[in-house]
């Protein structure tokens, strides 16, 4: 059995930043395990620009953003194994993994950081009727085919879902010579960034059909067409609104799911709202010494925030290894209320707070001229003005640890005070 102070599962942006931060905090004996052939994770296929605006104050492409962290990891001489699949994690922090060099390996760790990311929802998850021909891809799979493997996925494309990956792929396919007929979105608003709607759809005159969905897929061996229908306020297709599109490819950009099979094996409690582990102020899960960060915890819209969260997990794991955090003390729950979908972290141990505590949250609908309000027990202690809030954009509220230590609330809750509105785009 191999022994490490810290094992990081996943070598994408979260795993890289967590490992680097743990080393900066004094952890010597670190191992990063990555199932792909190289480090960098999904960033390697996200060749578009727009990464790093918050952290580096410049617009990098995905591979450039990843390369900076890979270089730092290599300079620090942090050990890693690529092409290595983790099969199991136990509650006592034993990891079983397999690769071609070492065969089956068992690793014992003082602390573990989970950074497995997320995966895409598929056709099965949204139950589109129709035949089952080739030519139905998730947007991320198509992205990998085109940007890494060098295969074009089709010529006439319909995209379902207007999340950022769907929008980015609409542009990418157009640049590579395909015709993107339409992007259909079930909701009356797009969950993608405004910038992507303008630069990926409007720049290329690609229609965005809000309140529409795909209701049929046709074709025997290959997709020959899809039907797009308008939906009503309850998101049900409206009979008579069907429109036929002749296409050879359907891309699905219909949401991401944190990838937590390993977390469940270690008996880690998940939050049904995020699909990821419940974490505390140090990004520690419900199992002592197992931390988590990035899209495995909740799906982020900016990699910059993944990096920041991973740094918190890396520092938290270091504190755990050096016994600088107090483990067995009651945690204060942070509860989402009116207008708030979820909050990360879900609970905090006030004695472990230091400096500032950032709460990450998503709202349930679009608001204008709103305030994000923080309530400690019965009293509202903080209000942050936001001219615009949308479920597609993660929000951050910063709390001062000293104030928390003075008030010592039993619960903290967040709610939105503002006017719900019709959608911006």
């Amino acid at each position, binding site marked *: 059995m191999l022994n490490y102070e810290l094992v990081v599962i996943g070598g994408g942006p979260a795993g890289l930043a967590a490992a680097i931060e743990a080393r900066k905090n004094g952890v010597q004996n670190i191992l990063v395990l990555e199932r792909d*052939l190289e480090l960098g994770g999904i960033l*390697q296929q996200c*060749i*578009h*620009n727009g990464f790093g605006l918050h952290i580096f104050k410049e*617009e*990098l*492409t*995905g*591979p*450039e953003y*990843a*390369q900076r962290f890979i270089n730092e990891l290599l300079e620090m001489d942090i050990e890693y194994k690529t092409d290595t699949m983790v099969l199991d994690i136990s509650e006592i922090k034993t990891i079983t993994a397999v690769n071609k060099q070492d065969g089956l390996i068992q690793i014992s760790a003082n602390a573990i950081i989970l950074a497995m990311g997320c995966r895409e929802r598929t056709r099965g998850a949204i139950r589109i009727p129709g035949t089952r021909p080739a030519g139905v891809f998730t947007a991320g799979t198509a992205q990998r085919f*085109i*940007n*890494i*493997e*060098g295969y074009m996925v089709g010529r006439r494309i319909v995209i379902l879902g207007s999340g950022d990956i769907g929008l980015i792929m609409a542009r990418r396919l157009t*640049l*590579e010579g395909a015709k993107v007929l339409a992007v259909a979105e079930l909701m009356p608003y797009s969950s993608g*960034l*405004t*910038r992507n*709607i*303008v*630069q990926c759809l*409007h*720049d290329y005159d690609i229609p965005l059909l809000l309140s529409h969905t795909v209701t049929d897929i046709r074709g025997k061996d290959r997709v020959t067409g899809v039907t797009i229908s308008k939906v009503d306020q309850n998101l049900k297709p409206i009979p008579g609104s069907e429109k036929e599109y002749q296409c050879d490819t359907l891309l699905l950009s219909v949401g991401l799911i944190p990838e937590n099979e390993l977390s469940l094996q270690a008996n880690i409690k998940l939050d049904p709202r995020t699909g990821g582990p419940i974490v505390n102020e140090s990004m520690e899960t419900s199992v002592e010494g197992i931390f988590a960060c990035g899209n495995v915890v909740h799906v982020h819209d900016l990699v910059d925030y993944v990096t920041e969260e991973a740094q918190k997990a890396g520092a938290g794991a270091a504190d755990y290894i050096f016994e600088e955090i107090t483990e067995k003390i009651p945690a204060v729950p942070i509860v989402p209320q009116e207008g708030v979908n979820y909050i990360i972290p879900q609970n905090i141990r006030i004695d472990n707070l230091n400096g500032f505590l950032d709460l990450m949250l998503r709202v349930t609908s679009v608001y204008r001229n709103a305030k994000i309000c923080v309530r400690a027990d019965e009293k509202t202690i903080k209000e942050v003005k936001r*001219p*615009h809030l*949308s479920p597609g*954009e993660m929000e951050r509220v910063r709390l001062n640890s000293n104030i928390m230590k003075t008030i010592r609330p039993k619960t903290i809750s967040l709610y939105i005070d503002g006017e719900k509105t019709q959608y*911006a*785009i």
Partner: protein
Amino acid sequence: MEKKRNMQSKELICTACPIGCRLTVFQDEKSENWFRVEGNSCKRGINYAIAEMTDPRRILTSTVKVTNSHYKRLPVRTREAIPKHLIFSCMNEINRIEVITPVRMGDILIDNIASSGIPLIASRNLE
């Protein structure tokens, strides 16, 4: 959205921040910048609209063919934003080149793509 209402005005969505103000830009010889902008809620909206009207630019990212690596494609980008109307001319040039590894992030692959004065660079290391 670039729907022309008439010859003198154009509608845009501002991308300076996530609010996404709907802007209308009017050609107006009397105003300082030759354009008048409506619908913006801050000054950045005016700058955005004028840039979009006079010299819209975008960073272009794509991939080029690689022959001797475990991956088939190398991601590339224009080092700075290029004029929007040159995007497809740039793609033609990008599709014509092949790269032999090793390549370092930042290596120049085309000096002056589509006569834009801007180089095309590699956006990662590839062995």
